[in-house]
Structure formats: structure tokens, C-alpha cells
């Protein structure tokens, strides 16, 4: 390739060679031919050259000033929220602007330097074709096959069998928990995924822990409720948030009718549980799990006239009048209903825990 242009290699020890000659020779040995090389300013110190130098210096100085401003703003600017103030809000934008200018200055300087001051150079490097030569491919193939021959696996059946047994056994080890889980359920219904913070007699409380009377929620209103237990409204009971809906009187009649004739039950519900679900409401009050059965987002966008409960993540919609049956979107199961009533003091309580696992499906869910 490069040998076509310079068949005789240069002797690098020749003292008469200049530094550039050595550079050219190095490039040639790497297959790169420098065909044109010329300084931008053959006569140093001209006016044009000085002007470009000043331009580069200007960018570098701007960069330095911006960087200093960045440090100063970072150190002394008040970034904390001030009621009615505006200066604090400019902290981050100013940091971004100054740092950005600093980087831009460096970049601009480097580009101008490279394009205007460095010598003009044109180099040619040959590119070899895609596939390796036939000879090389043949040699590599032979090497690989020879490695198989060296192990002698073909004429040593004992080792062959032992290898299959050994490797097969090691493969089986990680598979066994998966296969085992198919044979025996490792998560029976006593496991936490099947339970929330609600139990028989546990009060429905607001986020701040206060109990709720029926009169607290107007017809057409909703309230997010939590179990009245320690940490009931924190992530320790993350599966418990429940939406308490107070239907308007005319809707309550329809909902009551539908609840009595309910035909949508958890797959493993017993007859007693089915009866419990048919009267899980307290007059016009219905409590449904807030956790969408599709992907576990909070389904709490309640449309009080169309009685739909929406999940904002994937637009699943549930009909509140009809046991929260999914009517649109990817959710396939209704939102679980919490059986509720009112205790002697007039506060809402749960009659039991949810009768099925709340939230999205999981492996062991029936």
C-alpha cells in the first residue's frame, strides 16, 4: 500500500532527518500517507495571525471569567426559598449559564485554534476490504478444530458422559426453585401479599389518623382512607390505601341493586365470602382498594357523574356502581371491595380484611 509510493524504508537513525521526516515515516509505517502539509502562516507574526490569536485568547478569558463566576455564585448566592422572593430561583439557571459559557469558551478556542492556526494537512489512509483473506480464514478454522482434537473428547466416551452429567447437574440447580414453585405453592394465603392493614373492627381513618363518620363525606364525595393502625398511612401499609365513595342517593339505589345481584367474585371466593361481598357497602358508602389491579398505580380519579374510577397510568376505568368492574383499559380484574360498617360510636370500621389480594397480579395469585 504505502510501499507503492516509498518502496525503500527510511533509516530512522539517519541524523540528517528532521523531526517532521520522522513523523511522516511513523505515519507511513501505520499505512498513512501525508500528501500535503503546509503551515497556515508561512511568515510568523503577521497581522492576520495576531488577530486569530487574540480571538482564541478572548474565548479562553471568557471561559475563565465564567468559571470564576460559577464558583462565586455557587459560594455566595442565596438558593434557599424566600417567600415572595425571586433571586433564589435564579441560582440553578445561573450556575448552568456560567458553567455552560465556561465550557463553550474552551470548545470555541480549541476549534478556532485547530482550524486557523494548525498547519493544513491532507493524509490518505487505505482501508482494507471487509472479509479476511481466504488463507487466514482457513488457518483460524484449523486452529480451532485442533483445540477440540487436543481434548480428545471424541475418543474418550467416559469423559464425554461425565461432562454431560456434570454440566447438566449444574444447570439443573438454578432451575429447581422455579420448577419446585410450580409443584408446591411457596406463598400460601398467609403471606403478606394477601393481606392489608385492615381487619375486623379496624377503623377507616384519614391520612392524619382521624376517624370518619358517614356525615363527614357529602353525597358525591370521596375520601382516601387508611387502616387505623400504627403506620397505617405510611409505606409500612403501602397496600392499604382505600377510596371511600359516597354515592348520590339516586346512584346508590342502582348500586345497591347491582351489589345484591353481584356476579363478579375473586376466583377462589367461598360462598360465605360471596355473600359478604354482596353486602360489603354501608348504605351509599362503598370502599374500594385504591391500587389498580393492572400495574398498581393509585386509581383515584373519580368521576362523580359517570361513576368511573380512573387510573392515570394506563387509563384503566372501573365502574363504581357495578362492583368496580373494569370497563376500559388494560385492567382485567375489578378493584377489590372492602366490607365496611359503622361501629357503636358512629365511625367507619372494616368488617374484615379485603377478601382477595389487592393490587396487580403476581405469580402465586389464584
Amino acid at each position, binding site marked *: 500500500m504505502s510501499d507503492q509510493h516509498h518502496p525503500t524504508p527510511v533509516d530512522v537513525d539517519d541524523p540528517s532527518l528532521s523531526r517532521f521526516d520522522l513523523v511522516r515515516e511513523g505515519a507511513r509505517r501505520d499505512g498513512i500517507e501525508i500528501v500535503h502539509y503546509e503551515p497556515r502562516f508561512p511568515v510568523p507574526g503577521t497581522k492576520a495571525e495576531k488577530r486569530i490569536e487574540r480571538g482564541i485568547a478572548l474565548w479562553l478569558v471568557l471561559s475563565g471569567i465564567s468559571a470564576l463566576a460559577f464558583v462565586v455564585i455557587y459560594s455566595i448566592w442565596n438558593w434557599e426559598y424566600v417567600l415572595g422572593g*425571586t433571586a433564589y*430561583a*435564579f441560582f*440553578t*439557571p445561573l450556575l448552568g449559564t456560567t458553567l455552560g459559557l465556561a465550557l463553550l469558551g474552551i470548545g470555541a478556542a480549541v*476549534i478556532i485554534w485547530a*482550524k486557523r492556526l494548525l498547519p493544513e494537512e491532507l493524509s490518505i489512509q487505505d482501508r482494507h476490504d471487509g472479509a479476511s483473506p481466504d488463507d487466514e480464514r482457513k488457518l483460524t478454522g484449523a486452529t480451532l478444530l485442533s483445540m477440540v482434537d487436543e481434548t480428545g473428547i471424541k475418543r474418550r466416551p467416559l469423559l464425554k458422559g461425565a461432562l454431560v452429567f456434570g454440566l447438566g447437574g449444574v444447570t439443573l440447580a438454578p432451575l429447581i426453585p422455579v420448577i419446585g414453585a410450580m409443584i408446591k405453592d411457596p406463598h400460601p394465603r398467609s403471606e403478606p401479599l394477601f393481606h392489608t392493614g385492615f381487619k375486623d373492627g379496624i377503623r377507616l381513618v384519614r*391520612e392524619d389518623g382521624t376517624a370518619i*363518620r358517614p*356525615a*363527614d*363525606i*357529602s*353525597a*358525591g*364525595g*370521596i*375520601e*382516601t382512607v387508611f387502616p387505623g393502625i400504627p403506620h397505617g398511612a405510611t409505606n409500612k401499609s403501602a397496600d392499604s390505601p382505600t377510596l371511600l365513595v359516597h354515592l348520590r342517593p339516586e346512584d346508590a339505589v342502582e348500586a345497591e341493586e347491582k351489589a345484591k345481584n353481584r356476579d363478579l367474585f375473586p376466583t377462589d371466593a367461598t360462598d360465605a365470602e360471596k355473600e359478604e361481598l354482596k353486602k360489603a357497602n354501608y348504605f351509599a358508602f362503598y370502599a374500594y382498594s385504591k391500587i389498580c389491579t393492572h400495574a398498581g398505580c*393509585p386509581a*383515584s*380519579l*373519580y*368521576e*362523580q*357523574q*359517570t361513576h*368511573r374510577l*380512573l387510573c*392515570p397510568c394506563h*387509563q384503566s*376505568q372501573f365502574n363504581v356502581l357495578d362492583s368496580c368492574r373494569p370497563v*376500559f383499559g388494560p385492567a382485567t380484574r375489578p378493584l377489590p371491595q372492602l366490607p365496611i360498617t359503622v361501629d357503636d360510636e358512629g365511625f367507619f370500621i372494616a368488617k374484615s380484611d379485603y377478601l382477595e389480594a389487592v393490587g396487580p397480579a403476581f405469580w402465586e395469585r389464584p
Partner: protein
Amino acid sequence: MIASAGARVRDRFRRSSGFVVLVLALGLLGGAYTAFAPSSQADETPNSIAVREGEKLYNGGCTTCHGRNAQGITDRGPSLIGVGAAAVEFQVSTGRMPMARQEAQAERKPPQFNKEQTEQLAAFIDSLGGGPKVPEGNLRDGDLAQGGRLFRVNCSSCHGYTANGGALSSGKFAPALDDVTDEQMYAAMLTGPQNMPVFGDNQLTPDEKKSIIAFVQNMKAEKDPGGMGLGRTGPVPEGLVIFVVGIVVLLFATVWIAGKS
């Protein structure tokens, strides 16, 4: 003659005095009647004037959908008996009522009635069966931090964390709270217009409502120092914009640098 003339004078006097007595008696009776009998003209308080004016406005613009007696018409408009003055003030002052046509939801538009007319309509509807009212006074007099907490628990699921609104089902949506007045916000919480749930005074006390209003108005008044807020939806759209715009700029810069070589 003289005697007869005197008798005539007396006679005339007697007759006229009888007339006076009759007039006086009738006048007293009538006065007493008007004073004691119930009369629509009797208690002409400012409120009853507003109710009458409101009724006129109602008959002019609302009966098509809500019926002659505000009893509602199936598939057109709901009954307005007992919805209260707050509902009227919200729906009319935001221009949602009167509705242009039946559609997924009534949208905000320039109001058709001025403030006084709105109050008259509200007084009329209130006279039909009471209902919630928006209180007088400063409705922003609340605790910002508490308002923020309550907003995130009760409002943000539909209106979004930054009160920029969000989509609901079948073309309905929760509106952005950009140009909403304190009174409208209060009335909306109190009455639950359209598909918004009702937040009665037992659920969110008047003080809590004021805190929420204070929070929303304060949040809306905050400026976006970085320039365009992009709906204040956070780092994801901001990142997307800077990526798309930035990549295009870098692309052109690269082409420019390479083209000059």
C-alpha cells in the same frame, strides 16, 4: 230662608263630614290591612329584588335545559333545586353555564352574565331550596403548608401536582387552575361541579379550603426562572426538549465544523 239656608249648610256639612269619616275609616282599615296582611309588596328587601330579577334571567336563559320550575329535564339538564348559590356562582361566573351545546363536558368560556346578574341568579336558585354558599371575606387566609398537603391528597390525582389539569375518560378532563378565582375554587370544592367529587365542609373545613386556595394561588404566582415552564411537569419533558433541541443544534454544529475543514 235664613234658617233653611243654615240648615242646608249644616246639612251639607253633615253630609261631607260623613264622607270624611267614611274615607278615614276606609283609610284606616286599608292601612291596617296592608300593615298586617302578608303582601309580596310589603317586604321589598334587596334580596327579594335579586330573587325576582334572578327569576327573570332564569326564565330567559336557563329553562330550555333546566325546566320552567328548575326541576330539570331528562338528558338535558339536572334539577337545580337545592344545588345552592355556590353552584350557580361557579357555573355562571366561569361561563360554563349557559352551555353552548351538550358535549363531554361544559368548558370554561367568557361569562354570559355579569357579576350582579350572576348574584341575582344565585339568589333565585338559593330561594328554591337552599344549598351551599360561598362565604364572604378573604378566601386565601390559610396555611400554605397544610394547603399543599391537602392539595396533594385530595386534588392532585386529577388536577395534577402543579394544578395544570389532566385527562379523564371519554373526552372529559380536569381543567388547569390557571385563571380560577378564589370564589370559584371554593365553590367548586363545595359543590363538585360536573364530574368533580364534592368536598363538603365536614370533609374539608372552611379553613382547610382556604389553605388549599392559598396554596394553589401561591403556586400559580410562582415564576418559572428557567424560561418556559413546559407545563411544570418536571424533568422528563425538560430532558426530552433539551435532548431533541440540543441534538439538533449539535448536529448542525458538527456538520458546520466538518464542512469547514
